[in-house]
């Protein structure tokens, strides 16, 4: 049993040691259960890791892979929660926020960042509808309206594909959903050129995948202030 649970788990993430992270989570769960392992142990550690990771990325001391390992650990932990709930005969852990829609914009085939965002959003309790890669603007809005989602998160890696985000902005506006359907944008290109967020019509972006949950909270609240959910009036 470690003396410093949070520090030990944080270290496994920086060391990209998924196996040891799982051992620590299992050890916590043996005492407190897997739901507690996620809520009371992993989530606070990931929140702190996110801040440290962002600043270390900025200073070239952390890697994308460490964020990827964190996302995998989150997925592993959520899977264990589901298994534990099934084994105990209780209802599966329900999402408490959302739904929200995610996808890579039309012509973009770089799923890594989007998958990391999906993992962290799910860990934070969001109901994520992941549409995959190369998603047309209309398909994003159709999915959001069908699910009554207030936020769409769209990922693009390159400048050339990021330009297609403008089509999504236009589609949202054309259907009269401005403000009620918030547009979160992310991907490598926005780190190089942050001015693109506004230029392409994004309502916000996040520093890292781990900061996506806070961004979605903010955008969801803003949407609620501006009217009913898309599709709620149908």
């Amino acid at each position, binding site marked *: 049993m470690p003396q410093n649970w949070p520090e030990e788990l944080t270290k496994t993430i920086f060391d990209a040691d998924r196996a040891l992270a799982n051992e620590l989570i299992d050890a916590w769960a043996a005492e407190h259960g897997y739901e507690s392992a996620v809520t009371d142990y992993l989530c606070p550690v990931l929140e702190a890791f996110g801040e440290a990771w962002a600043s270390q*990325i900025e200073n*070239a001391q952390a*890697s*994308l*892979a460490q964020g990827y390992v964190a996302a995998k650990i989150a997925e592993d932990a959520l899977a264990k929660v589901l298994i534990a709930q099934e084994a105990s005969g209780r209802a599966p852990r329900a999402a408490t926020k959302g739904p929200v829609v995610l996808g890579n914009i039309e*012509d973009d085939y770089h799923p*890594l960042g989007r998958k990391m965002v999906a993992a962290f959003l799910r860990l934070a309790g969001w109901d994520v509808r992941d549409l995959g890669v190369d998603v047309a603007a209309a398909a994003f809005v159709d999915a959001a309206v069908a699910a009554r989602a207030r936020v769409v998160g769209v990922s693009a890696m390159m*400048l050339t594909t990021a330009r297609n985000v403008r089509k999504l902005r236009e589609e949202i506006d054309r259907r009269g959903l401005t403000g009620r359907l918030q547009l979160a944008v992310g991907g490598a*290109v926005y780190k*190089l050129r942050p001015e693109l967020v506004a230029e392409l019509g994004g309502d916000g972006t996040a520093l890292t995948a781990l900061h996506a949950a806070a961004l979605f909270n903010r955008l969801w609240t803003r949407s609620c202030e501006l009217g009913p959910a898309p599709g709620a009036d149908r």
Partner: protein
Amino acid sequence: MNSLQRVLAILKGEPVDRPAFTLLLSLYGARLTGASLRDHYSDPRVYVEGQCAVREAFGIDLLFSPFALPLMAEAFGGTLQHHATQPPTLARPACASAREALVMAMPEPDGQPALRYLLDSVGLLSKRLAGEAALVGMMPSPVDLPAMLLGAETWMETLLFDQPAALALLEQCDGFCAAFGNAMLAEGATMVAFTANFANPDMMPRKHIEAFVLPALQAWTAKIKGPLVFHHGGYRLVPHLDLLKDLPQVVAYVLDVRDSLLEGRRHLGNAPLLLGGLDGSALETFNPETLKQRCHEVLRAQKSDPRFLLASGCADIPLATTPETLSAVRAAVLEVAGVAL
């Protein structure tokens, strides 16, 4: 002094008649010829016409073979997505796992149409340039090639969580990449540029890089029978040069626009050529005047560096960039040299 002589002189740190410069206009050739991107990226004759048009229009000293690394994926059985405004991208990789890739036979360097296209682009362009300009062949290193075979996520996962399979795949890719790099040189490339994003600590943890990614990269570069250029591939290099310098055969580095050229020189010493100063993907946001000003700033800052070549880094310069803007780079270089336009 012609462009090739100028580039070779700069490589040796010898005096030149004017600063050398280049722009990554591998894609842009299609705008000048009006060819469809499908033809541009499948017919070497079309590609070469585009590069000759680029050379004529903008006077760059160093040209590039197609910067379309996913074509390699197609040669291994992957599926590409073709686009109207950018090079093809990988839509579906050939293999679902490293274990699957390990039982796949590696092709000969010229054994598939996509590979033949890449090599013929070098061969035909080299003949057309006839010693007038330098030519760089572009390829992924063996630490990046697996991302073309498996997709970047699966390759990252393999490197992180299945090191025996990662090592075996690195070894398998080493032979192919050595043969391909040497084939590019044999076709007439002055140098071969490679990406090694999975050896970059912005992408992978240092301990993995030090343990087995960097040794694989070192082993491969040692097998190349000519000069190599380390291309930043969209990631910063300067903060990591303590790891990434001193690779066998590497004579030049293309730095990211976020990298400090002066810091880069400090880390690398006097020997290698440094390329950079301009963010290729952002050039469309400049007008001719602002770009000229930017070039002057970079050239002024690098004035005392005899082994500097003004270059665009990052990905291909977007098609939407105007020819007038691109012409400003040459204008700035000639102004610095005091040459009448």
